Every structure is written in structure tokens, then in C-alpha cells.
């Protein structure tokens, strides 16, 4: 296990190749072969992605800017690394990325940002909500397969993402897969049983805020991977700030993983689409 939370990106963007793309229930799993970047991105770090061709001229003549996506899994492959990105189509950017076919070019900048601190105090508790399961998968790969992840989804179609995990306890909002519950209920039960934990969470703002509040009242350490609309991903635009105790922090360079103690409210405004 490495204590480093950040692997440095080469300067500039580079062209990767889409190696594989497939549906995974309600999501799309895109695998890129990156031969120009480091093979060891850290869980929680992210990349800026843009299709090399036909980026633009989608709905509303967009997308224009690259999209920030945490990698879900990184596997060394020959001279490069295979990077898995889990996406949900929510706008013209993710729509185009979901159309990518094997052999197509993909602009990548990264890995960017600060990932999870992979040296937990107590037992790690992994929590993912929806598409936020992506960096939690990378974290499980890092911490060990025996560390179960608590995963919450809207429905069974979304819950298919849990099949990527070695160990997972699944709940859905509509009860169509696993328990009918919010994942925060599962978190509460685990913390009631054993509070000597470090909680790692990524998911929608309301979920992250609920996790933050649960951990704060129990004095449990938590690391939260947040999301915000980003233009650049490397600190240039100052667009992705979230309010922290120290003032506004740029999620792209000071996050996206923040210690919950730095926040008074993790329910940041929803990311731009």
C-alpha cells in the first residue's frame, strides 16, 4: 500500500485509444488504453476526457469542454495502462463519450487531483452512490478485495455496476435489487456496530452530506470524493470551487477527495452537465 495520494500527470493532453466499450445496466463502461501517462494513478484521481473526433455538434452544439471522470479501475497493459471509466449519460458530453467505439481516439489529461488517503485508521468502510461507485471500485482494488463496499443505486439496472466489485452489499431506492434502502442507512448500521473506521465515500451531494453528518456526530474520520463542474481540471479556471472551512477550495487541485472535517456541508451545488 502506498501513502501517496497523487500521481503526477505529464504536461498536456495526449491521445489514448478506446480499447473496449460496453453497457453495464444503466451505465456505460469505457476502457481506454493510455500509453502516454503513468501506470499508477491513485484511487480518487480523475482525468479530463474528450473524444478526439466529433467533440461538439451534439445537443445544443455541445460538448465543448472536456469532461472530468474518476477512473474506476487501472490495469497495467504492456507499455501502457487500461483505464476504465464508468459513465452515465446526463448531457451531451457523457452522451458522446458513451458513443465511443473501440479504436476511436480519446484525449486524456491526467491523472489529476488528490485521491484518497489509502492508510485508514480503523477498518475502512467503502461507500458508493450511483455513478459515484467508480472511484470506490479503484479504492477496493487498492485496499484489498476483502473490504466490502456498500453501494446504493436507484434501481436494479443501475445496480449492475456492483458486478464490477469483488465484495459489495447493494441497496436500491426502489427495492428492485438488494435491500430497499438508502445507502446511508447501511452506513449508519455499520457505524453503530463498529465506530472505529475510516469512511470513504463518493456519490451525489445529498448522500455525501448525509455521510458527512453521520460521521461528524460519531467522530468518525471520513474522506469524501466530491464533484463539481470543471472546465480545465488543473487549477486554471477557478470554476470548480466548493465552500470549505478555509474558504473556497478548487476541487481539481485541492480535491476531489476532501477530508470531511474540512467541510461544513458536503451537499455542494450539483455539477454542471
Amino acid at each position, binding site marked *: 500500500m502506498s501513502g501517496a495520494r497523487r500521481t503526477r500527470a505529464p504536461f498536456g*493532453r495526449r491521445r489514448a485509444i478506446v480499447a473496449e466499450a460496453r453497457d453495464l445496466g444503466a451505465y456505460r463502461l469505457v476502457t481506454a488504453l493510455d500509453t502516454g501517462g503513468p501506470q499508477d494513478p491513485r484511487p480518487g484521481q480523475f482525468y479530463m476526457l474528450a473524444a478526439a473526433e466529433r467533440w461538439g455538434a451534439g445537443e445544443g452544439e455541445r*460538448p465543448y469542454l472536456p469532461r472530468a471522470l474518476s477512473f474506476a479501475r487501472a490495469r497495467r497493459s504492456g507499455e501502457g495502462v487500461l483505464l476504465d471509466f464508468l459513465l452515465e449519460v446526463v448531457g451531451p458530453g457523457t452522451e458522446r463519450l458513451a458513443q465511443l467505439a473501440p479504436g476511436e481516439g480519446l484525449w486524456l489529461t491526467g491523472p489529476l487531483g488528490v485521491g484518497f488517503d489509502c492508510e485508514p485508521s480503523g477498518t475502512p468502510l467503502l461507500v458508493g452512490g450511483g455513478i459515484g461507485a467508480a472511484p470506490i471500485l479503484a479504492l477496493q482494488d487498492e485496499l484489498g478485495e476483502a473490504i466490502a463496499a456498500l453501494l446504493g443505486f436507484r434501481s436494479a439496472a443501475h445496480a449492475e455496476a456492483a458486478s464490477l466489485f469483488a465484495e459489495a452489499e447493494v441497496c436500491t431506492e426502489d427495492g428492485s435489487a438488494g435491500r430497499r434502502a438508502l445507502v446511508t442507512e447501511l452506513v449508519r448500521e455499520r457505524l453503530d456496530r463498529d465506530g472505529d473506521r475510516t469512511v470513504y465515500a463518493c456519490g451525489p451531494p445529498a448522500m455525501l452530506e448525509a455521510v458527512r453528518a453521520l460521521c461528524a456526530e460519531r467522530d468518525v474520520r471520513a474522506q469524501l470524493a466530491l464533484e463539481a463542474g470543471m472546465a480545465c481540471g*488543473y487549477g*486554471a479556471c*477557478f470554476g470548480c470551487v466548493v465552500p470549505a472551512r478555509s474558504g473556497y477550495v*478548487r476541487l481539481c487541485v485541492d480535491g476531489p477527495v476532501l477530508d470531511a472535517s474540512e467541510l461544513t456541508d458536503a451537499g455542494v451545488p450539483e455539477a454542471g452537465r
Partner: protein
Amino acid sequence: MSERRGIELCGVPLRGRVLNGSGTFDAIAAHRVFGDELYERFPFDAFVSKTITLAPRQGNPPPRLWETPAGLINSIGLPNRGLQGFLASDLPRLAELPVPLVVSVMGFSLDELERLVRAVSERDEVAMLELNFSCPNVETGLIMGADAGETARAVERLRPLTEKPLIVKLTPNATDPAAVGAAAEGAGADALSLINTLKGMAFDPRSGRPWLGAVTGGVSGPAVRAVALQQVHAVAARVAIPVIGMGGIQSGRDAADFVAAGATAVAVGTESFRDPEAGARVGRELAALLEERGAESGAGGAARLGA
């Protein structure tokens, strides 16, 4: 002249014609992200700092960004450490950059501007100053830069305070930017840069409320390029001092259009968000195009480029 020899801008030698737009590249953060490779392959021929103000600023509440067709609305609000913080912690690090440094300043009054210009121009690390009279997110910026008389009064006050070149950044949100540019030249400005962002707005499709935390912002990117070209053309026709043209430049061909419109140098802004190395790419492509053009049109073509 050969493009490979670089240019002179207000007496400062530059290795090429490409700067960054103020506030579109944070060299300190980028060094944290990319390491020394950033300095080894620094993408700009001069570096323009984010705008600094006398007092520190947190900037605007999020959300701060909205993607438009071929562009972006930003509402950042000039977050910065303030003059003292800049001089103490940012300037020593910006001085490590391999290119001349331009410091952008904005004051909310002429007194504030005087203090900023005096303090910044005392520092040897600073090659030039840019006066941001044009940020559309801050009310006073709009008032000063939108009016020829206000601009002339400000430049007249500041001109005697420094021997360093003064660049006046023009706002496109003015009735007649060329008149403002001519007023700045008359009051002693050494160069003009334009355009800053155009005022813009977006609504949350779900709630119907304004999307940006500060309600309005500034539009940049290819969406504004045609507007920028016209304004650069109009301003360059009215003044004799060099013009730094910017607005949606994505390629050397775009940059060459700005040169054709009368710009001596250009700046890359929003394109750096898509590609951190964009400035270097634009510079290479522009140099090749201008060499080609110069060769085609002979010495007259090169002189027309005004460097």
C-alpha cells in the same frame, strides 16, 4: 523579419507572439500538477498573472461555470490573495517562469489603482503591467473601461507612476471600444489588449433560475471569436500602439486572423482549459503561417505585422 527571432512588445523581447489571457492559466497550480515539465515546455511567450486587487478576494459563489455552444460562461469574481499576499507568496514563484511576467491589476478606485501600480512596478521581476478595466463581474471594472473619459483619467493618473509598459485591457461591453482604446493611447498606454469576456447569462433548465451563483458572467471561447476579430480590427485601425488580440483562439489559423486584423501579439485563454499546451501549439502554427505569408508577400508583408 523571421518569426523564429521572436518579437518585441513595448520594448520587451518575446520569443514568440502568444501570451495567455489573464485569469485563464494559473502557473503556480499548474506547476503543482505537472511539475517542472511545465517550465521546460512553457506554453506562452509571456505570462499574464491573474488579476490582483488591493484586498484579498474569495471570488463569487458557485456555480461558476456554464458551457455554451462552442464556449463557456464564467463567473469567477477575481479570487486572489490581495496585493501583499501576491507580492509575498505568488510573485517569487511567478519569477521562476522562463518568460517575461505581466502583472494584471484592478482597483476599485483610482487611489487603489495607484497603490497597486506603485507597489507592483517596484519589483524587478515584473516586465509589464496590465490594467484590468474590463472585468464584467465587478461593477467598477465595467464603469471604468466602458467609458473613454474614465479610462483616460485613470491612465493619466497611473502613467507617471511607473516606467514599465502599461497595457490597458479593453472590455467588449462598451459602445465604442475603439474610442476607449484611443483614449487610453492618448493618456499614455503602451499597448492595448482585447477582448475581455462578453457579458452573459444562463438559466438552470430544471428550476428556471439563473444558473450562475453571481447571476451573470462572461462569455469566452470560439463563440466570441468573430466579435473579437471585429473589435481588434476596429481598435487597431484607431491606434498606433501594439494590440494584443484574443477571443476564442484555438489554432494558429485563428491567431493569424487576429494578426491580419492588426494585432501584434495574441493571447490564448479558454482553449488552455481544453488543452494545457494549447498556447505552444498555437504559437508553432502561427509562426509557420506567418513565415509562409511573409515569404509570399515579401518585406511589405512582414512590416505589416508591426513587430
